């Protein structure tokens, strides 16, 4: 039976100008730009596009559109983002995102996104963590544009709808296995298969855009969807391309205890706050000014400290409470209806009456494939960046890098529309001015088939579910909110064994039609690549910065580590790459002590 799926993909080719891998927000913003430009564009997505993880984003999209505050300034947003990144976000990219942001947000509104509104009819904005006016001197800002607490859902559906309007080709429920790389190290497309029919194809393209999102499923406890398995990064790492800042994982302060579902920061933006077992609003101690709206890394660490010091809530003292009842039923029902629903379903509490039990939960991958603001992927040779022809990346999969060591709430949705749009524009110009890539040989195509073939031919080996559990437990135990060298070394060692197993998986189910066993096995191998990159990067960065907090190196070390880390998957070594401190229009923000 497995013969059918092993039909050499070289005989089955679909050709496009641009191929976007991933049908979430960033992928569909890219494809929308390209479809409008008239290029033959296809989106391949392992789920129907509106099932992508962007749908789970709640609180909003942060952008200085001067609605809540007519004096707001994108430069203030830029300052907050640089500070939030603990100074390793690239300032040229952050400048581009914050200044182009308003255009991208207005476009979304024109496409029909049902934003909530102020009385004057403009887009509703709410306060989010890490936001300030006047470069940190003017108090809390309200800069996050929202559609109630379902902004991601509204955004993703709006983008899908507009792609339908523009006639984008969708290959839905197709899975990308590996990149096809020719002898000149150019990317010429991917090997992929239809999950429904099993048909294997070489999807050939002049530009391949990885918009595959994050990989939160490397952890046992995460707000991420089950599909967030880092498939794009798995492909680039296997192809020998580096990944940047992989030690930087955001733990969201408020995941529902036990279930992991996200509770938006917008709850605290609307006036909610965290309390410990004594009923104390403890964030006042850790961040006297911003309190519950400090950076996410700061809030998450404070919560863990409270729990470690015995002031956690519940019989196990293993969580804290998010108090919302004082906001009243009206605010909760109109501004946070989705949260009320989720709390009832997953925490069995009605936030109108009782607090929600929450705990820091893995949420976002700040690292990824290094790119410039056009989405072009970089690799490195002899300490020098060079562009990988044909390869692009956008959204959470990419590291452009606007989030540095810690992302601000509401900046992920902005990242994906701004850079999805930018990549689309760039690819359009590049391809229309004659750019493109050479052919791949049959051997190149066969090589990209080998992972799938090995799996299909497996006759014995390890069970997917077992190995996945080991991987997730390992990452959760040794690479969580607080990290320590000796434990991480243990974790890296364990990952070596897990790699051995993940390369010897047994695909029990060999059938063709909608074989989810096959998909999960391939996903697990991607998780492993991401986990290993994370582990080695985290072990090597011997300082604390942003989300990367080390017990054994509690201080930030600007002398040695005011830089990106760059993980080389071939040598399994960590290099360094300069942070950009040269924005175009404003003066760079120099590193300062970061306090809230």
């Amino acid at each position, binding site marked *: 039976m497995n013969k059918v799926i092993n039909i050499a993909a070289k005989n089955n080719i679909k050709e496009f100008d641009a191929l976007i891998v991933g049908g979430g927000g960033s992928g569909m913003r890219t494809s929308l730009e390209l479809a409008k430009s008239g290029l033959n564009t296809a989106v391949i997505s392992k789920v129907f596009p509106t*099932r992508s993880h962007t749908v789970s984003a709640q609180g909003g999209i942060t952008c200085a559109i001067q609605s809540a505050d007519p004096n707001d300034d994108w430069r203030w947003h830029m300052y907050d983002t640089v500070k939030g990144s603990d100074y390793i976000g690239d300032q040229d990219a952050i400048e581009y995102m914050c200044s182009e942001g308003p255009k991208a947000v*207005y476009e979304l509104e024109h496409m029909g996104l049902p934003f909530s509104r102020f009385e004057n009819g403009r887009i509703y904005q709410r306060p989010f963590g890490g936001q300030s006016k006047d470069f940190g001197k003017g108090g809390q800002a309200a800069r996050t544009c929202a559609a109630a607490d379902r902004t991601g859902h*509204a955004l993703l559906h709006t983008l899908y709808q507009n792609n339908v309007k523009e006639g984008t080709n969708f290959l839905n429920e197709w899975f990308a296995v590996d990149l096809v790389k020719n002898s000149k190290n150019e990317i010429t497309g991917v090997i992929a298969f239809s999950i429904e029919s099993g048909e294997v194809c070489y999807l050939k393209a002049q530009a391949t855009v990885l918009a595959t999102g994050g990989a939160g499923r490397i952890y046992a406890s995460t707000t991420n969807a089950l599909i967030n398995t880092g498939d794009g990064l798995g492909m680039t790492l296997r192809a020998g391309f580096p990944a940047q800042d992989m030690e930087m994982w955001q733990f969201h302060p408020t995941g529902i205890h036990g279930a992991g579902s996200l509770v938006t920061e917008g709850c605290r933006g609307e006036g909610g706050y965290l309390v410990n077992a004594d009923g104390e609003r403890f964030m006042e101690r850790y961040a006297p000014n911003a309190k519950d709206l400090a950076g996410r890394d700061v809030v998450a660490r404070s919560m863990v400290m409270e729990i470690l010091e015995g002031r956690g809530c519940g019989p196990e003292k293993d969580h804290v409470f998010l108090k919302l009842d004082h906001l009243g039923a009206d605010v909760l029902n109109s501004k946070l209806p989705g949260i009320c629903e989720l709390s009832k379903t997953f925490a069995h509490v009605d936030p109108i009456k009782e607090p929600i039990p929450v705990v820091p939960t893995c949420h976002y991958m700040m690292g990824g494939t290094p790119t410039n603001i056009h989405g072009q992927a970089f690799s490195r040779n002899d300490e020098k960046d060079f562009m990988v022809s044909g390869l692009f990346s956008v959204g959470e999969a990419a590291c452009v890098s606007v989030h540095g060591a810690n992302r601000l709430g509401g900046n992920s949705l902005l990242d994906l529309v701004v850079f999805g749009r930018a990549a689309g524009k760039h690819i359009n110009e590049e391809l229309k001015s004659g750019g493109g890539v050479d052919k791949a040989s049959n051997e190149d195509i066969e090589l990209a088939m080998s992972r799938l073939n090995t799996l299909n031919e497996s006759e014995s080996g390890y069970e997917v579910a077992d190995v996945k559990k080991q991987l997730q437990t390992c990452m959760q135990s040794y690479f969580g909110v607080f990290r320590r060298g000796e434990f991480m070394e243990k974790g890296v060692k364990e990952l070596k064994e897990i790699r051995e197993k993940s390369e010897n998986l047994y695909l029990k*189910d060999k059938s063709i039609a909608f074989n989810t*066993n096959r998909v999960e096995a391939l996903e697990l191998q991607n998780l492993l690549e991401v986990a290993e990159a994370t582990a080695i990067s985290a072990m090597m960065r011997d300082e604390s910065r942003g989300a990367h907090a080390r017990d054994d190196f509690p201080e930030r070390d600007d002398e040695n580590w005011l830089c990106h880390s760059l993980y080389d998957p071939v040598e399994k070594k960590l290099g360094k790459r300069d942070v950009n401190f040269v924005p175009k229009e404003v003066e760079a923000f120099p590193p300062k002590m970061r306090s809230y």
Partner: protein
Amino acid sequence: MELSVSLYRYNPEQDKFPYMKNYKVKKPKKDIMVLDLLNMLKEDDVTISYRRSCREGVCGSDGMNINGKNGLACITPLSEVLRGNKLELRPLPGLPVIRDLIVDMTQFYEQYEKIKPFLQSDSKPPEQERLQSPKDRDKLDGLYECILCACCSTSCPSFWWNPDKFVGPAALLQAYRFLADTRDTKKQERLEELGDPFSVYRCHGIMNCVSVCPKGLNPNKAIGEIKSMLLTGTKEDKIKVVGLE
């Protein structure tokens, strides 16, 4: 205590006909979701196939028929659906089955695309956003939240009969989402495309859509609004009576 789970199984390469397969599972101590239970079963039998993604009721992947009623597996607790420790899981009714609990949703998506599910406006967009009062924006509540899980359309007898001609509750809810949007200027054209005897009028108010919607939406009400717009037009748009000329 043991649970008896009866699962609809069909693999087109092996099975001439679908069949129900029984699984015995130890009843979990705490109340878990139907999706958690499926994940447990799949660890032992990797061939069990179903869609899932967000596992929190917002992506709409895991709509299925749970003890006779359509719902999302990820937000349906066992305690709500178990009958005498028995659970029967079947694919959404009325659509072709690809494998096990996975249905072919092509017809469902085609109906969605048919209603032109995107904002259409004759006016050039301003430099900033289009203005909309909170009151006008409120008209979209209960409409835009649809997650396209298909629980409603596949519980609708009218959709079972005419999945090609009756638009179905999910897509009609979206049709009304754009009819109700003050920013959309194609109301007349939208209504004209719905005025035939099948697209809307096959809805007989059976209300299954309302009783199964996992997001608590009310497609039946939206369909009622569309019918009334078709018959009387809306005052502000002076829409002519469609289908009754």
